[in-house]
């Protein structure tokens, strides 16, 4: 190959290096590429955290947080909550009888009790009725996995072949598959409530309509939970060959008379199957949004009839009933507002500390420069 003249100098910046040399190739075969990337010379932004950047940031963030916190705090304060513990500890109301009756008996006998309360003013709607269980560890690992989502989603095969995770609530003693299988379903919350309103003192109690539909997530109700395909138009036939969980008194297809709310898509069941994250949890029981009560619960006396079935003594838990209104930010939650306020003030505080440091440093720096 005839040698050709080639420029080998790089950038030409270095004295002496910009020499023209004879070389057989234009540049060394192994010469690295001179790109910004390979030479690590990509244009870069080098933020250096220092007071001058941090100070405005601290103050701005602090102020913003405090503002947000105040808003949250007040809106959370505007939400009303009314709760009642109907566990039935001795001397806490008429549910204690039921609690006492259920003790030591399995299954506990059906029992009713009531909770009376009165509202002095309108309980701003929409009002949600929750029940709350405390000390109930739905998030216990072995409990939480004891279910078969495929069965619940109406897969016929899975209906008769529940997943192993369901054990020991996978099959009955007779070997029949349990539907729905698993510990979660087996421990379904089965208290029921009805709300009665007494408009005038001494007047009759009128039942307040509780909307028991739409309490589950839309996707749960419509996608995740499906009944197995009907057999001859009958849900009962579809479930033939399965047994209900041991704790249940009736089969799953008889959970409700409403065909759209029975079987696996019974909303109470769906809500229960969404296992709670924390040992103290609420679950939505009903929404009050019909008739006269769409604006909220008007003033007056109320009675909640409670069918007391669910035993809680085994785990030392409590059962509560809660009426709650909601705002733009969901349920009552004073914490978030407070947290914002605290963090905001912390920002301001650190801002001030920084300011002090900054001023002192400036002085020192000047001294240094004088050296």
């Amino acid at each position, binding site marked *: 190959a005839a040698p050709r003249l080639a420029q080998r100098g*790089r950038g030409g910046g270095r004295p*002496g290096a910009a*020499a023209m*040399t*004879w070389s057989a190739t234009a540049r*060394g*075969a192994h*010469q690295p590429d001179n790109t910004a990337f*390979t030479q*690590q010379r*990509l*244009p*870069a*932004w*080098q*933020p*250096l*955290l*220092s*007071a001058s950047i*941090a100070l405005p940031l601290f103050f701005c963030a602090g102020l913003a947080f405090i503002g*947000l916190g105040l808003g949250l705090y007040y809106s959370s304060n505007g939400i009303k909550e009314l709760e009642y513990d109907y566990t039935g500890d001795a001397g806490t109301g008429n549910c204690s009888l039921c609690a006492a009756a259920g003790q030591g008996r399995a299954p506990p006998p059906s029992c009713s009790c009531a909770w009376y309360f009165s509202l002095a003013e309108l309980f701003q709607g929409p009002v949600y009725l929750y029940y709350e269980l405390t000390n*109930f*560890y*739905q*998030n*216990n*690992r072995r*409990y*939480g*996995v*004891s279910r*078969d989502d495929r069965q619940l989603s109406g897969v016929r095969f899975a209906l008769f072949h529940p*997943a192993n995770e369901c*054990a*020991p609530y996978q099959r009955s003693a007779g070997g029949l598959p349990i539907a729905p299988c698993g510990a979660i379903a087996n*421990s379904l919350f089965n208290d029921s409530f009805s709300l009665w309103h007494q408009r005038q003192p001494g007047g009759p109690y009128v039942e307040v309509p509780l909307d028991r539909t739409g309490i589950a997530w839309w*996707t749960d109700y419509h996608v*995740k939970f499906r009944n197995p395909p009907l057999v001859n138009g009958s849900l009962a036939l579809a479930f033939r060959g399965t047994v209900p969980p041991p704790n249940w008194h009736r089969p799953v297809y008889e959970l409700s008379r409403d065909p759209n709310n029975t079987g696996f898509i019974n909303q109470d069941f769906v809500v229960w199957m969404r296992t*709670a*994250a*924390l*040992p103290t*949890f*609420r679950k*939505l029981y009903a929404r009050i949004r019909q008739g006269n009560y769409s604006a909220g619960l008007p003033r007056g006396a109320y009675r909640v009839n409670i069918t007391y079935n669910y035993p809680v003594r*085994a*785990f030392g838990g409590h059962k509560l009933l809660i009426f709650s209104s909601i705002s733009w*930010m*969901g*349920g009552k939650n004073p*914490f*978030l507002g407070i*947290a*914002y306020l605290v*963090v905001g003030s912390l920002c301001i505080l*650190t801002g001030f500390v*920084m300011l002090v*440091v900054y001023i002192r*440093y400036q002085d020192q720096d000047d001294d240094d420069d004088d050296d």
Partner: protein
Amino acid sequence: MALSVDSSWLRWQWRVREGSAQSASEATPLLSAEKARRSYNLRRQRVVFPNNSTFHQDWEKVSRSYPGNRIHTTKYTLFTFLPQNLFEQFHRWANLYFLLLVILNWIPSMEVFHREITMLPLAIVLFIIMVKDGLEDLKRHRFDKAINCSNIRIYERKVHNYVRKPWKDVRVGDFIQVQCNEIIPADILLLFSSDPSGICHLETANLDGETNLKQRRVVKGFSQQEVQFQPERFCNTIVCEKPNNHLNRFKGYMEHPDQTRTGFNSENLLLRGCTVRNTEVAVGIVIYAGHETKAMLNNSGPRYKRSKIERRMNTDIFFCIGILFLMCLIGAVGHSLWNGTFEEHPPFDVPDTNGNFLPLALEGVYMFLTMIILLQVLIPISLYVSIELVKLGQVFFLHNDLDLYDEETDSSIQCRALNITEDLGQIQYIFSDKTGTLTENKMVFRRCTIMGSEYSHQENAKRLETPKELDSDSEEWTQYQCLSFPARWVQGPATMRGQKSAQPLRRCQSARVPIQGHSRQRSMGHYENSQPAVAFSSSIEKDVTPDKNLLTKVRDAALWLESLSDGRATKPSFSTTSSIADFFLALTICNSVMVSTTTEPRQRVTIPPSTKALGMSLEKIQQLFQRLKLSSLSQSFSSTAPSDTDLGESLGANAPTMDSDEKDDSSVCSGGYSTDGGYRSSVWDQGDILGSGSGASLEEELETPAPGLAGPELCYEAESPDEAALVHAAHAYSFTLVSRTPEQVTVRLPQGTCLTFDLLCTLGFDSVRKRMSVVVRHPLTGEIVVYTKGADSVIMDLLEDPASVTDIDLEKKLKKTQARTQKHLDLYARDGLRTLCIAKKVISEEDFRRWASFRHEAEASLENRDELLMETAQHLENRLTLLGATGIEDRLQEGVPDTIAALREAGIQVWVLTGDKQETAVNIAYSCRLLDQTDTVYTINTENQETCDSILNCTLEEVKQFHEPQKPDRKLFGFRLRSKTPSTTSAAVLPEVGLVIDGKTLNAIFLGKLEKKFLELTGYCRSVLCCRCTPLQKSMIVKLVRDKLSVMTLSIGDGANDVSMIQAADIGIGISGQEGMQAVMSSDFAISRFRHLKKLLLVHGHWCYSRLARMVVYYFYKNVCYVNLLFWYQFFCGFSASTMIDYWQMIFFNLFFTSLPPLIFGILDKDISAETLLALPELYKSGQNSECYNLSTFWISMLDAFYQSLICFFIPYLTYKDSDIDVFTFGTPINTISLTTILLHQAMEMKTWTIIHGLILLGSFLMYFAVSLLYNATCVTCNSPTNPYWVMEVQFSDLTFYLVCFLTPVAALLPRYFILSLRGTYEKSLLLKAQKIDQLPRDKRDLEIQNWRSRQRPAPVPSMSQPSQHPMPHRPEQAFRASTPKSSSPPKRKHIEDWVLHGQRGSREHMTDDPCSGDSSAKLSSGEHLLGPNRTMAPGAYSGGQTNMSRCSQRGSHRRSQSSLTI
């Protein structure tokens, strides 16, 4: 990985194989009764039978048991790859741990996650590493294959001839024919050389980095072969030692059929990897092959290096395991307690499959194991993969750095070890080789002084400054490239170099002057590798631009010289002219330089004994050619007449010159040298012949053309490069060395006259005498002249005392010359030049005869021959007349002083370990600023352990007194001392201490268990110089320092002699492109120039370290932070090991969402720009002190992780408390929050934001949402029983989610942000300051850097160019020299050793003498020259008859003043 294990295993395997084979061979009747006399012990000896017809049977039996020559350095084979690699990978604790967890997860009662999913991360990790290992091994395999398949000529019994076969087919006992420039494939015993004197020339560059030719001799008894060696006739059995790794130790014997034995030694052994030079053909028998060769045994294989960060990391992983254990314990105990609170089994307490409940204790144990599975991420499995990947990225950038690219060799840095890049940023000690590493090993004549007048050779200096690119050499090389030749018949050096176009410049001390169009073909076995076939020096070395001033004087001198031959009337006087002539004659003659022409590569110009009839060989043509040219002996010409035709052909090109030569021939052959034998014997025995010889005109006056056009240009091959440099220098003044034989030296004078000097005697150079002499008979005057050349310190002592001269004028003149020369010598020394003094002496015929017989006796004596020879030498070399001195520059590589200064500023201790002699090493140390003129230098030379001990003690005591106040931070006393503690001692500036030590002393130290003292002493030393080190010692030193001081060490070297050192250090760096590949092969990084080390360490090292360290810390933080979320949740789920985050999302979190940013961070982040790092080497100290990653940073980040996880968990917890939140809906904001926090944390850690950083961070964040949304939307029942269906979507429609996700990261990062900005504002750490400087615009930045530097170093480091402007007073060097009586210099000769008081007295004196030495740098008082033994010797206290101590008087200016001690 477990390379070391592996290679040693391999070796063990060979041993075993060998051992078993041996036992088998002993059992078999191999050495049967009929050959009972040959009962060799194969366990202790190696027996080699030649592979020829006679011995074929024996050979078959024995040699089969020896390994073949195939080498095999790979770790795996195709079949063993998978199991072996897995096996090795599970040596890693983490992998084993994760394997354990995977297995645990398969136990049903502990199954936290899906069994298969749990295997995923481990499988990925194993796979990635496996691929990487596989590729590395493949590379090794290819290299082995290339080597194994290179060809060599092996004697084939059946064909009765040599056959070309690959290296791997070479077997022990084979006869091998190696041709010129071929590489020797195995260790072979030399049986034949085409050289008439039975010598084979070797270049051992591959082995020890030395390019000068070594001579190996044919085994005694084989040297007189007249024809080609006949393997069939070889009927001896060879018995020698077992394979060992001593390169220079070998002995054995050959048993002849008649049971006589011939011994041989390492002189007769050609080692694998050497290159045959200058010898047409050599034949030998293979003694060791393959892995048993000395070269391979010396190559102990790389050891698996674990970087410091990795070691640190491993301890931190143990901390993590501790934390994990604690957390699991809490979980287990908590679970049991929680379970115990229930009187009956609550509905959420699910029994096992059979409906039974486990006892509490067992439940607790299970829970413990389950918790381990749950919290396993605390031990970051992805960290290992990430580190591997990051290192790959770092290596990529290292590889691509243009600044580490050398255009000359077209090579950039090679990273051979991928797993220790970050160690580059933590180096505390550098061990460097000298030759070829610091220096280019190009000796360049710089200036000289003759008779007291200095010739500065400024043009020469200027020439040296011009860039090397303009080297004419490269032009020639391309010209040759244009010449086309048949491919296989490659001819000559030039084309060879053309082929290896990557290496246009070869370093060597012989120079080639080009001849155009030399196109003689010859067959040469080329080893087609990247090996340089022939080494030549560049024009830098050979072209010396003469000093104009001197040139004219030289012409005069030459004229004067010629006038001698005319009249012989002029008496030689001490006139300047005659001295100049003598000076140049001495330069030309007084050496051992061999001359060869360029027509053939490195062919020696010799005038051989004519009786030897050779086959038509290259040598012969060469010799004839030379004879024609020089026309010295006519008989030889006629004796080779039969081959005249060939000769004519080959010399056709030179025919025109032949005529004149032939004409002269007749006139020359008139001498008394009728036969070769007579010629030989004439020197010693026949004084009368000598006498008559001088009468007979030995000089030849040839009418040669002007020097520039002279036909064949000459190559000079010298044992030491300085000799070549001097010859070149003389050549520049037209004193050309034309030929050298053992008997004669021919010199061409400027006028073209050739003078042939009879070499009466040569006293070779040795390190004890430090000088060499030649005794010649001057052809013109007939005088017997001794020319001596040697170290200034020695020669100055041997000069004739001016006082003894009768002539007053002469005395004055001599004194003046000596003083002035001394002054110049000092000047040279300060410039870092290697100085040599040239002296002469004329002795009378009678004296010489007496001395000669004396010498002869000494040579003949068997006992204490060495001592006698030494004594005779001393008898001759005294009362010399000083002619002058030369200053030779051993050219440092470009940028070496600068690099060393920067490295030292960076707090790195630089040690030089060299096999070179002490003077050279010290010289280089000065010129590369390893030692400073102001340093106090201690030299320890002793063989005796006790002596060594006491010297160490004394030195230590003394040094401690210097440094008493600075004792605590001895490592850093370089700067700290100056910048921080204003020196409390009276002297404002403490002298730095340097230590020079030699191999023998090191031996004593190692044997005498003095390592601790030695290390303590070196702790005080700024630099340590170890000379005359064997490769083993080098590695021992490195190991010593590394292990005893537990510091990070780096070794850098270029030759095979550095291999062990390179492997011993934490980081081994090989310099490539200069020497063989041995050093590179064993190194972790291979660079092409020493100066690349600066950027490699200061920039890349810093970056790699800080990147990786911070990434590791970040990883720990990340994992702890994330895992703790799960842990906190356990408090709310009854310690049941349930998770609020879907497992897939958890895996994705580590695998995708948070993996890329740290990788990018680890590869790309730059805390400080390269320019600033280079400008402020101190910044390197952050890496040395492990500032980015140490125990405290680890724990701080752990604490931070705990805090952040607390915030990340409890803010959502409190927010969602008492609501209808479900598990995954609760987990999603937590996951999101922690992701945000972790990414923002990363963002805060990043110091440099490029578009890549931004995109990756943003991408990770968005990917999280995209993947989560998609996953949550599509997976209805795919992941039963956990089911996060539609959770993300629901959260997205919830305002609280946003509020929480906004607040929590702010709260979590607030403290860190606060601290960081506080530090950014307030703290004055170097790194932060540098970062601030980095932010400034360019011009301001430069200013700031200057400010900084001036603040750091109030006393600026003097630059090389202004050596005289030292602000500090000169401090004399002190040398404690001790030698045992065994030492070859006889103690009675006082003037050789100045025995000096050791200890404090002498040194204090040095301290107090400051003023005197201080001003001496400015005015070199001419009256004070050094080392006159008579001056310096104040006979000191004589203790115990053993210690002769004397005070070394202050020698003013001379820095090399020697104060020595012996016991």
